[in-house]
């Protein structure tokens, strides 16, 4: 062997040994560090996370995100704020085409089918029920339903897949003005027995619709109406028709003129016909919202959701933000059931989520009691997680501005009867809301209820047919 060959071999050996040593040292040091960090932070990765959030959700989101930032500082969250107008899906589509969809996307119930069929969000079933996430029944069933296309929905492959997880339980309740009720001789005893007449009485959580009509009539005085109801399928009409035994706006067909619908509409239109309800003409001016009527003192009682609470605090009915000025009751029972409507906003994971682990980690944190705490403290949130919503010690139940009988929100959240149906085109839309208003106006101008319902049925059928042909 020549001297030169030996030196080359020695050189090679030296390089190999040096390289291996450096690599081993590096790996050993890194293993220690990474193992330590992995043990300390489950559900915490590193890197960026992008979120699209609605403007009205920005405050609770920021509160939750701040908590996540403390828990998992290695994830850097950036978010874009969007409004819920018709341009929202267009904006998301544009982002999708550019390959820039954020990892997490917010929606609201009736918008979700559009985002699903547009390919903007991915099914979550493969993440739910896994040991590193939550089971599907972790959330309130009534709220999750909004995001699971049922049998009959199109496209068929989406049926049974859950695309979003609800953030909040916006279940309907009746807000009441404590002073107005007291003046009319009524007291609220949530767990007692309801006994009411035109001169007053006791109202409990299990009050009935007939008893409610008595209360509303008694509360109607001067320029103040007894109640404000919304001509809104999701908030009131769907759940009441369902309790009467039919599905008003189903996935494949509508039933808005049968006996169940007739019974329901008789109950719903009663207050309007006897003059104890804020007129639909006023509501139309208010964008079909009851909050302005209640907040201005025009109505002594009004249908609303938890999300209305921050607006009500500081309004005329509750100018000082005093928790004793306003109260809340569940929707009155019909045949022993609260015909509660519901809806929510929700998080979904986009089809282009490149930070999937970070997205799932954030959602895992957000839906934990600690994660929710920040959002709950903002007052507009009843958590959509069953255990937290029912927990009397949860932060949302301790909110300083909570109304009298705050627990009624929990009753409502657990008793949601109908939510936005999950087939594109069959959710209540502007056109179907117009049918409803036309029907009500027709009845108020003297047409028989059955005849008006038949006319509405024809119009809704036509809407269904065009929605289906549009999908085909």
């Amino acid at each position, binding site marked *: 062997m020549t001297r030169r060959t030996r030196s080359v071999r020695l050189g090679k050996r030296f390089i190999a040994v040096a390289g291996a040593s450096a690599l081993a040292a*590096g*790996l050993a*040091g*890194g*293993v*220690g*560090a*990474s*193992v330590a*960090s*992995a043990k300390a932070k489950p559900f915490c*990765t*590193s*890197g*960026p996370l992008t979120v699209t959030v609605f403007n009205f959700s920005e405050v609770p989101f920021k509160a939750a995100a701040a908590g996540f930032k403390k828990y998992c500082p290695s994830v850097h969250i950036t978010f874009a704020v969007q409004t819920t107008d018709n341009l929202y899906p267009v904006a998301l589509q544009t982002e999708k085409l550019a*390959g820039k969809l954020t990892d997490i996307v917010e929606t609201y119930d009736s918008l979700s089918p559009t985002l699903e069929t547009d*390919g903007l969000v*991915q099914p979550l079933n493969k993440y739910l029920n896994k040991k590193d996430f939550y089971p599907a029944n972790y959330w309130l069933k009534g709220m999750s339903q909004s995001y699971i296309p049922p049998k009959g929905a199109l*496209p068929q492959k989406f049926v049974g897949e859950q695309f979003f997880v609800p953030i909040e339980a916006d279940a309907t309740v009746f807000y009441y003005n404590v002073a107005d009720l007291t003046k009319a001789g009524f007291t609220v005893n949530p767990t007692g027995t309801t006994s009411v007449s035109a001169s007053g009485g006791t109202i409990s959580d299990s009050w009935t619709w007939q008893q409610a009509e008595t209360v509303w009539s008694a509360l109607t005085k001067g320029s103040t109406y007894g109640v404000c109801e919304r001509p809104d399928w999701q908030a009131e009409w769907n759940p009441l028709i369902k309790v009467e035994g039919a599905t008003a706006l189903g996935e494949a067909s509508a039933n808005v003129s049968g006996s169940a619908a007739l019974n329901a509409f008789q109950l719903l239109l009663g207050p309007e016909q006897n003059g104890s309800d804020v007129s639909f003409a006023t509501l139309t001016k208010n964008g079909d919202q009851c909050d302005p009527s209640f907040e201005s003192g025009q109505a002594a009682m009004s249908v609303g959701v938890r999300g209305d609470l921050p607006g009500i605090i500081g309004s005329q009915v509750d100018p000082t933000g005093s928790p004793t000025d306003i109260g809340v009751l569940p929707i009155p029972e019909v045949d022993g059931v609260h015909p509660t409507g519901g809806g929510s906003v929700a998080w979904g994971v986009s*089809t*282009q989520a*490149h*930070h*999937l*682990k970070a997205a*799932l980690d954030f959602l895992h944190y957000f839906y934990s009691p600690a994660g929710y705490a920040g959002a709950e403290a903002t007052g507009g949130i009843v958590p959509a997680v069953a255990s937290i919503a029912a927990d009397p010690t949860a932060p949302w139940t301790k909110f300083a501005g909570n109304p009298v009988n705050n627990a009624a929100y929990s009753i409502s959240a657990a008793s949601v009867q109908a939510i936005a149906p999950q087939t594109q085109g069959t959710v209540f839309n502007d056109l179907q809301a117009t049918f409803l208003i036309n029907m009500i106006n027709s009845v108020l101008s003297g047409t028989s209820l059955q005849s008006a319902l038949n006319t509405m049925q024809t119009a809704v059928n036509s809407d269904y047919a065009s929605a289906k042909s549009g999908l085909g």
Partner: protein
Amino acid sequence: MAKLIPEPLAESAGAPVGLVAQAPAKKRGDGLAAGFMIGPNVTLFTVFVVVPIFGALALSFFNWNLSGDPFTTAKWVGLSNYTKMFSDPLVLISVKNTLYFVAMGVVPTVFISLGLAMLINFRFPGVSIVRSLYLVPAAVSLAASAVIWQYIYEPKFGLLSYLFDQVGLTPPINGFLSTTAYALPSLDLVCVWTTLPIGVLLYLAALQRIPASVIEAATLDGAGWFRRVRYVIWPGVSNMTLLVAIISLIAFTAGGFDLVNILTRGQPIYATETLIYYIYYTAVNDFQWGYAAALSVLQFVIIVGILVLLVAARQFLVRRS
């Protein structure tokens, strides 16, 4: 002066039949000349290949977001970037997609290349034109090819949807590139199309080195077309098969990026999320250069692993035959 060596020896040495020049004796100064000639190449190779390889390996132990001097701003994280891969669901998805993309691309490329090369390994009028046409996909840039195929895959007016209709099949409603089951095979088809020319060229060269006399002898011995391919042509091009497979492998692992980036961006729902695209996204979009470097190391290991398997498979087949 060149010396004559017998033709059989020339063949066995892999040299062209005929006159073969023996290697002349080494002279003084040859080393210097060789160094002068290969020096620039080695330098460039070192600067642009070797250094980046070791640089990427080193970077994979750091977190660096491209801002500032890497020697002062990069943060040592040890194996964190590697352990992170185990909890990152997109790594598994992209590795699976990459393996599928490579397997479904390399194998057809090898066999179709050989088939096409055999088709044009004859003298016929216009053979030069036909052979030139085979090179068209390689002459077109990958980006341009992607755009052309985008039109072919277009859901309503695309050629492929039309062909599906003509043979009574239902094309996917959302289009081939937007349907989970079709997206990756569709990209494979494009990549096969663009990789074929180099395979055909290499196989054509290998086929032309098989002596016609050997094929004639096999024919005279009663070997049919299949037997001639199986026992004469296939062994005769086995070296080239390995080369074509390696080149295709590299083309499919690296070249897949252009197609994914232009046609699908990893969509629909990660169906075309290949490792190289995920590396690109992590580095260029997220500025996680350390993590991207770790992913690159993973890709390197995968490619080397496949190459080792290919070589082992070839050696096994050679020994067996």
